[in-house]
């Protein structure tokens, strides 16, 4: 696997749109060609090279291309957008849309990410060692097809609207979350190892939400069913299972109504 290192040298005065920082785009290019790739600051179309020091050449394909992003990229959006394979390591914090519409490969962010990280995600692995913003692994506005597959793991906390319109895949938050988790979910699994707030699982049709910590207000549409023993992300425990959202439509399977499952650790 070949490694390309892009290091921030000139900060944008506004924000930088760098959707070209992706193994799929870098693949088969030399560092000089990569520096010539487009980047956008407001209406100005410039090049990655204007902002980043680029060293190393990409591999022949996305799969054998590794990108290391160095320096302060808190004002850089769309890192790893639509990537299908390969690897990106962001040494510090990144801005919005990191790994948006990601299809495969791995992104590791050692700092924090802002809103809309991993929206419309179809596959791959997205790891955030710090905190994540709002709409993590959510759907783009208006789309009923939210996160379809892949895994997102956040070691810190996440904001509101995690897993909005989630259809598949898995989101693990090791810290706490803000309001609205798995709203409109129709599949997939969300694990909150810390505390939840309120509005958890509202309008949920199908799928799973597991909360290890507290829920300050339970949605009225969730009904306690039973206690279950299970192993969640390496932790064994007893969980109270709730079915919901009773106010929402639910599909039937072999005469059985399928509900959303909300588990809370006892």
């Amino acid at each position, binding site marked *: 696997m070949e490694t390309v290192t892009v290091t921030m040298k000139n900060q944008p*005065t*506004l*924000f930088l*749109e760098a959707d070209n920082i992706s193994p799929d785009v870098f693949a088969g290019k030399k560092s000089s060609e990569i520096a010539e790739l487009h980047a*956008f*600051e*407001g*209406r*100005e179309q410039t090049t990655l090279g204007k902002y980043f020091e680029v060293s190393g050449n990409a591999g022949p394909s996305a799969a054998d291309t590794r990108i290391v992003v160095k320096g302060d990229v808190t004002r850089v959006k769309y890192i790893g957008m639509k990537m299908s394979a390969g690897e990106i390591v962001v040494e510090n914090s990144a801005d*919005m849309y990191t790994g948006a519409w990601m299809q495969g490969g791995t992104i590791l962010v050692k700092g924090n990410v802002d*809103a*809309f990280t991993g929206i419309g995600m179809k596959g791959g692995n997205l790891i955030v060692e710090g905190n994540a913003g*709002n*709409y993590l692994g959510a759907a*783009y*506005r*208006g789309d*009923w097809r939210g996160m379809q597959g892949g895994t997102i793991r956040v070691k810190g906390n996440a904001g509101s609207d995690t897993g909005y*319109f989630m259809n598949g895949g898995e989101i693990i938050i090791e810290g706490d979350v803000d*309001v*609205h988790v798995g*709203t*409109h979910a129709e599949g997939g699994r969300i694990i909150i190892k810390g505390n939840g707030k*309120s*509005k958890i699982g*509202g*309008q949920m049709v199908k799928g799973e939400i597991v909360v290890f910590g507290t829920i300050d*207000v*339970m*949605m*009225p*549409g969730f*009904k306690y069913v039973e206690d279950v023993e299970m192993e969640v992300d390496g932790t064994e425990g007893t969980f109270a299972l709730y079915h919901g*959202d*009773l*106010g*929402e439509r639910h599909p039937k399977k072999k005469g059985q109504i399928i509900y959303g499952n909300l588990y809370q650790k006892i």
Partner: protein
Amino acid sequence: MTKIVPDVICPFCGTLCDDLEVEVSDDGKTIVDIYNACAIGAEKFMHAQAKDRVTRPRMQQPDGTYKEVSYDEAVEYTAQMLANSKKPLMYGWSSTSCEAQSVGHEIAEQVGAIVDNTATVCHGSTLIAVQDVGIPSCTLGEIKNRADRIIFWGCNPTHAHPRHQSRYSIFPRGFFTNKGHKSRKVIVVDPRKTDTAKMADIHYQVEQGRDFELLSAFRVAVRNEELPDTVAGIPKEEIYKGAELMKSGRFGIIFFGMGVTQSLSKNHNIDNAISLTKDLNEYTKFSIMAMRGHYNVTGSGQVLGWQFGFPYCVDLSRGFARYNPGETSSNDLLRRGEVDSIFVLGSDPGAHFPISSVKKIAELPSVCIDPHITPTSEISKLHVPVAFVGIEVGGSCYRMDNVPIDARKVIDPPEGVLTDEEFLSRVNKRVSELMEAK
């Protein structure tokens, strides 16, 4: 001798009353009286007459005072500011005509601006919800003619849309509702016992910020599922009772406002209210409608829609239209420092944005187009007074139910004062020259 101008449109709120009669002096220069308008509408017409009205552009001086400048200088400053910005924000658009909005959009396209309207602090969350779950709705006349269940959720028309209840919702006698008020049941959901709530058959004094839970509870009740004993401070018996009242009607309508769009859960509140409306259509006929604020905020969303495909928060910076409230919304842009200049037309963010955003506006190159003196005009680098749309110039406007009505010109603007459209057209021309040169 004075003359009466009939069928005048009121350029205040989204109710867009079109039955005003304005008495003007026979020289057609002054408004003598207004009939049929609410207190706010009447005041708007009268203020257009104010003797102390600003009639020439004013430029902010280093010491913070303002100095009168010519419209030519104003056009030049505005065009230069927009052409020299990487990412200007063009905000407002809700108190002007669709024709003026169109010219503004041409400018925005040339300079790669973000076009956002006052929905961003009003019914933006509604627009997001509609994009997620749609909206079963109707025109206001349908309510007058058919509705026997009226729900006001987080809105207070008695204060914000004063003629709404008499013209469309509670009182009018329609084709199938010839008993007027008697043929209707009214429910109000509000954390305060508002003057609207005082007219209701049932008032749910919901715990503030728990509308999402209460809406979910109604959906549970409509499906005859189990509820906890109380939700959002309301006993479950009351909730089941309300659900039955909704289902038992022939035609129901939910009107909602800032109480739900601006409280915790925002778009989710509306989303759930729309979902409740959809559920109720399994049992009877039900509609839902946003109580839109500015008289033409709806029009701005329509024109943006047919020209770019999004109703607000439209980002043109990359050369094609993009949209995502949370990123391309005025307050997030200002908070994050994503824009390098701001152009405001027909709105007052200085008064109606959180102060942290207002401070950002004051730091940026800024232009404020407004007939009034406002907090925005007094922190902007340039204030350009213009004619009042709907009083001194006509143009297309859209009511809260998206019905287009053509606003009328009643009197002439003060000598030499330009209309929005005239000023914008001159800026557009100048911007084209500047962009060509680049």
